[in-house]
């Protein structure tokens, strides 16, 4: 458990939010800073899309994000270097992706 933005927010051992409803854009910014990323509007577009799909129960994959119409796969790698799907999921406050593609 860790406190960020002065509220008790629970994370998994790997740093994923346990409850996606506790997510706020401010929290995303703080988590992003830890990854060395400064969030832009484009980042937030991706995060919001991920949250929306997660709520719909879609199993997320690189391919699906690439087909989202928001970013292509190359842009996704550029926005979230070192772990496009994992880092974006972490910053979106959704569970660790369970996809192999």
């Amino acid at each position, binding site marked *: 458990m860790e406190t960020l933005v002065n509220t008790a927010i629970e994370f998994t051992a790997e740093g994923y939010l346990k409850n996606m409803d506790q997510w706020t854009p401010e929290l995303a910014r703080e988590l992003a800073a830890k990854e060395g990323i400064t969030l832009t509007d484009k980042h937030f577009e991706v995060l919001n899309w991920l949250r929306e799909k997660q709520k719909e129960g879609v199993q997320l994959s690189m391919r699906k994000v690439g087909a989202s119409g928001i970013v292509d*796969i190359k842009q996704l790698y550029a926005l979230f270097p070192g772990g496009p799907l994992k880092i974006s999921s972490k910053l979106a406050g959704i569970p660790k992706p369970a996809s192999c593609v």
Partner: protein
Amino acid sequence: MTDVMEKPVTQVANVPVNKENGKLRKVLIICSKGKLEDVYAALVMANGALMEGIEAKMFFTFFGLDAIRRKTADHLHTATVGNPSFMPEMPTVLAGLPGFEAFASYMMRKEMDKLDIPHVTEFIQMIEAGGGELYACKLAADMFHLTKDDFLPEVKDIITVGDMYALAEGEGTHIIFI
């Protein structure tokens, strides 16, 4: 959180990952086979590495060249004869009937589609988009009389085995042979 973060656990098996003995930084995946399942194993591992922030290089040789040829990349087959894992109850005589292998391969591709696994050419585009690099083996290309134009545009070059080893240079590299 930080001390836990350094020792992550794998998601499914819940096994602690020891990252202290050196990180995996790069994989060189050699694909020497052209069967659907072998090629996909290579592509999934290369793409999976990139998704984890691990550098990935691919070297295609012998029948593996089929995976990067314009003509064949999206038409790879699985073996229905001489493959003990494929429908063991199926008599070899039936499995060898004309069209059976094409049908089995079609069914396999359909199942993979459902799992959101892209076709070979799309997969290769994804790997390139992630910074992965693909190379063809010079010896095999010469043997099959193939030139750069025969290969998908994502294939960077046709290289020798020596050049292939150069790709693997650097600490934390693993070579995977399929």
